[in-house]
C-alpha cells in the first residue's frame, strides 16, 4: 500500500495530514497489519488537549490493544464517528480513515516528523533488525 507523499509519519506508526493548522491523524498501513482485524476504537472527546507523544486513543484488534500517540500538540477538533461504527475501515483503508482532526498549536513542528520516504526506510530498517 502507498504511503501518501503529503503525509508525515511517526516511529509509533501514526500519520499526520496537515492543512494550515488543522491536522488529520490516523494509523499507518504497517500499524494495521501488525494489529490484525481491528474491532474497536476508543476515541477522545472533542476539545481534548493533545500532548505530543502522549496516548489519545486506543485501537483494539481481536488479539491486541494498542494506544495511539499524539504526533503534535493541539486540541481535538473532530472525532471520526465512522471509525466507531466501522473500525474495520482502519484495516481496509488506513490512510483514508482518520481518527481525529486536531487544531495544532505549532504547525511547523510537523517538519520534525518523517516524510513518506524516511518512514518507509524506517520500516525497512526495523524489519531487518527484527528478522531472525
Amino acid at each position, binding site marked *: 500500500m502507498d504511503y501518501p507523499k503529503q503525509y508525515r509519519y511517526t516511529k*509509533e*506508526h*501514526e500519520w499526520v495530514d496537515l492543512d494550515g493548522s488543522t491536522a488529520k491523524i490516523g*494509523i499507518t498501513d504497517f*500499524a494495521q497489519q*501488525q*494489529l*490484525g*482485524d481491528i*474491532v*474497536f476504537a*476508543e476515541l477522545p472527546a472533542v476539545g481534548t488537549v493533545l500532548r505530543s507523544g502522549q*496516548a489519545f486513543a*486506543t*485501537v*483494539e*484488534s*481481536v*488479539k*491486541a*490493544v*494498542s*494506544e*495511539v*500517540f499524539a504526533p503534535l500538540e493541539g486540541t481535538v477538533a473532530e472525532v471520526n464517528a465512522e471509525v466507531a461504527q466501522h473500525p474495520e475501515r482502519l484495516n481496509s483503508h488506513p490512510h483514508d480513515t482518520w481518527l481525529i482532526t486536531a487544531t495544532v498549536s505549532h504547525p511547523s513542528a510537523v517538519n520534525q516528523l518523517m516524510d513518506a520516504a524516511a518512514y518507509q526506510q524506517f520500516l525497512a530498517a526495523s524489519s531487518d533488525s527484527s528478522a531472525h
Partner: protein
Amino acid sequence: MSEIPSAVVRPARHTALHDVHRRLGGKMVPFGGWDMPVEYSGILAEHRAVRERAGLFDVSHMGEISIQGREALDLVQFVTCNDASRLHLDQCQYSGLMTPQGTFMDDLVVNKFTDRHYWLIVNAANRERDFEHICQHDHFDAQVVNVSEGYTQLAVQGPATVKILQPLTPVALSPIRYYHFTIGKLLGVECIISRTGYTGEDGFELYFDPEHSEHVWNGILDAGQAAGLLPCGLGARNTLRMEAGMALYGHEIDTTTTPLEAGLGWITKLGKPDFLGKAVIERQAEQGLTRKLIGFEMEEAGIARDGYAVLHQGQRVGQVTSAGPAPTLGRNIGMAYLPVALCPPGTLIDIQIRTRTARARVVPMPFYKRRA
C-alpha cells in the same frame, strides 16, 4: 501505536511446518516457547471458516507422553483426576494432571491404545515439566516416555471436516465417535485419527511422523480448497475455544486452581482410588467453594482482556482469565474467577478497562454451542 508486548523467555522452538507457515504468510508469534502462526488471512476470517466450513491448524507444539507397562493404568490413575479405568480401547478422555495440592499441573487428553499403553496429550509449555512430574510419581511398573518429538499434530476442525478428509483415507470417518480415535492411513501416511478438538466444532486431530508434515498439510489444504477450508493460526484457536467455554492452561487453570473451582467437576472422579491431590479436592467438595470460574458478557462498549480486574460495587472481586471479542456471537466475552456469591448468571459486575469501568453480566457457559 504501542502493542502490549509478549515476553520471549528463550529461543523459540519450531514445528516441522515452520517454513510452510512463513511461506503461507503466517504472522509468527511466540507461544509457550514456540514460534507459531497467530494468523494467516486474519483471525475473523479463520474463525468464521471453522464455524461455517473448516480450518486446518498446526498444533505440533502440543506434547505426547507415552505410558506403557503392566501398571500403566495405575500410573495414569494416580496422576490424573478423571477415571481412566472407564476408557475403552481407542477412546480419549479429557482430564487433569494433578499436583499434590489438588491443582492443575496441566490439562490433557488421555488416549487408550491397549490395556498396557496410554498416551497423555499435554500443552506445549508444560510438556517437559509434565514428563518430569509423572516420572517423579512413577512408583509403578510403567515406563514413561516423552514422545513429543516423534509426532506432528494437525487439527482439522469445522462442519465440512468429514467431507474434506474422507476422500483422503480408506478409514470410514463418520462412524468414529466423538472422543474416540482409530489408526489408519490418510494421504498414504499412517496416522492416529482422533475425533477431538479445541474449537467447539466437529473435527479431527491427526498425529503422524513429522517427516510427512508438508505432504499431509498440503494435501489437506488442497483437498479442502473447494469447500473453503483455511489454514488457521493460534488467534482463531483462542477465540474459538473461548466461545466454546474451554479452559486454557495458564489462564483458567494453573497450579493455583482446582478442578472444582474451574467448573471441571465432571472430570473429577472422587469415587476412584487415591490420586494426587484427591484429599484436598474431597475437602473442598465437602466444605464448599469460595470462588468459581464464570463466563461474562460485556453490556457496555469495551473489550475485556486477560488480567483485567473485576469489580463489584466498587470493590475488586476478581480477575479476568481470558477475554476478547467473540466473533460468532458478535459480543465481547470473558471468563473470570469470582466469589461464589457473585457467580449466579445475571449478576452484574464491572470490568476495569484502563482508566474506566464497563458493565458486564455473568452468563452461563459455554457461550457458543454447535447445533447437533
